[in-house]
């Protein structure tokens, strides 16, 4: 307990120092950035040598490297070219094909833990919709979804090009809120949106909202974009709205879930897929609207390299160990 209190105090002091004493913001020059990279590489080589000597490093050292790989790139001035994958371009093309005034249904089926991956997609999606004068109908099969949508909209409106458009609630976009029932909600929407969302997120009756007053069901929707982190999510939308009611749909998924979406993509059930933070960065590039997806890609790259390095180190040690064992035998 005494030791715990000491550690807590140390954390508090470091936090206070970083908050009040360190000049803000911190930015490494390219030279410093490369020196940092070389130092990390040297440290990894040292771990490699120790591991092949049979001395595995503790898990806290691995944790430390992961932390460094994620945090240090925030301060580096390194740029990386991002290549567009076909599935991301499909989402962009589908939205660009829509005429101004088209109605887009956006279902936000995720919660804060998945926000780092999906929130940048949501922000870029809103920026593109506002730029293209598309009408957006927001809803969620997760209770936190519509709240995440509100946060993304608030962020979007801080961009001058979006703020200047005078995008009005009720006329240009609405937030229908959340409803329980998972795929049953989607199925019910197939015949009547209003029955599932008699009031919007703010308690306004459905018929009082000019944008959705004449929206009866999916046949009045031109395109749908789903942001999903699990169940209920893209799979349920495909099964009910796409396959049964013929909705045109693109999706943004957490990377964990994205791999299982490829069969639907190939079968044409999905028109485009943004997978994880990389998908968000590619989408930002396609739309030419740089945001957090692009900003985080350097940290993402570094963290992947660290994991790959640890896999290589672990395997090298394993094979050298096996070889030694065989030699002894």
């Amino acid at each position: 307990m005494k030791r715990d209190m000491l550690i807590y105090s140390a954390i508090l002091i470091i936090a206070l120092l970083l908050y009040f004493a360190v000049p803000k913001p911190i930015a490494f020059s390219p030279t410093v950035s490369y020196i940092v990279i070389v130092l990390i590489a040297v440290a990894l080589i040292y771990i490699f040598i120790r591991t092949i000597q049979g001395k595995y490093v503790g898990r806290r050292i691995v944790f430390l490297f992961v932390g460094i790989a994620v945090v240090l790139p925030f301060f580096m001035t390194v740029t990386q070219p991002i290549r567009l994958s076909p599935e991301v371009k499909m989402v962009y093309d589908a939205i660009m094909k829509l005429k101004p005034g088209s109605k887009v249904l956006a279902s936000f089926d995720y919660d804060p833990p998945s926000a780092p991956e999906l929130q940048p997609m949501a922000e870029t999606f809103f920026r593109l919709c506002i730029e293209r004068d598309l009408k957006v109908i927001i809803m969620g099969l997760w209770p936190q979804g519509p709240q995440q949508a509100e946060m993304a909209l608030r962020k979007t409106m801080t961009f001058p090009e979006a703020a200047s458009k005078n995008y009005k609630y009720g006329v240009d976009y609405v937030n229908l809120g959340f409803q329980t029932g998972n795929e049953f909600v989607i199925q019910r929407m197939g015949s009547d949106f209003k029955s599932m969302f008699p009031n919007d997120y703010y308690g306004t009756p459905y018929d009082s909202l000019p944008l959705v007053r004449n929206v009866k069901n999916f046949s009045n929707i031109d395109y749908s974009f789903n942001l999903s982190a699990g169940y209920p999510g893209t799979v349920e939308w495909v099964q009910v709205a796409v396959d049964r009611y013929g909705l045109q749909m693109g999706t943004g998924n957490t990377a964990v879930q994205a791999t299982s979406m490829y069969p639907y993509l190939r079968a044409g059930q999905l028109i485009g897929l943004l997978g994880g933070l990389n998908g968000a960065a590619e989408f930002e590039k396609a739309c030419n609207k740089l945001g957090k997806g692009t900003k985080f890609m350097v940290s993402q790259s570094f963290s992947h390299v660290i994991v790959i390095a640890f896999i290589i180190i672990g395997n090298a040690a394993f094979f050298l160990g096996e070889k030694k064992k065989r030699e002894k035998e």
Partner: protein
Amino acid sequence: MRREIPLIITAVVGIFFVLQYFIPHPPFNQLNGWFSDWFSIIGACAIWLGALNLIRISADKIYRRREDWGYAIIIIISFLLITIIGFWEGNAFRDSGTGFDWLYRFIYTPLSATMFALLAFFVASASYRAFRARNLEATLLLLAAFFVMLGRVPVGDALAGIFHVPESILPSSIATWIMNFINTAGQRAILIGIALGIVSTSLRIILGIERSYLGGE
């Protein structure tokens, strides 16, 4: 009464939902609407049940002074705090600037997001200690992971660029190919396999062969 009626309800409702797909006309579409509404209300009550049960278990822990009962008090206090604020603020409880919104942004969001973010550390540690190319299958798994991890971030192509690797075999191209073809094939086999399992289990439930969801007694 305790088992027969639930079995009848399951069969009738299950058969109804199969039929309504084929006959999306009156009275099936009307009934479909009713059933979906009921499902939604029951779903909400089921989640309420979970929340209330949590409070009951926590209260019991405090009452009996079980190990770590102090943390049970924290659970109850935080539950009551957000619940009282949420009810007090009325229907507009989520509006920007409300207490509920503050709790969501500054307590719920960091706690839930960080809880899941911790997994990053453990996945890296596991990769170091357990991810071994012991045989052909494990090597294939490892190689696929390697190309996807490298190909899905810009650094992969940047590193390959140093060695003037042709575009068609850049890590990003290989990752795209793996994802669009081999991954699609594997995922599709899994998808069809799971779907067959779900369809057969659903049939067993509707026909009353599978009854485990009713519990004991």
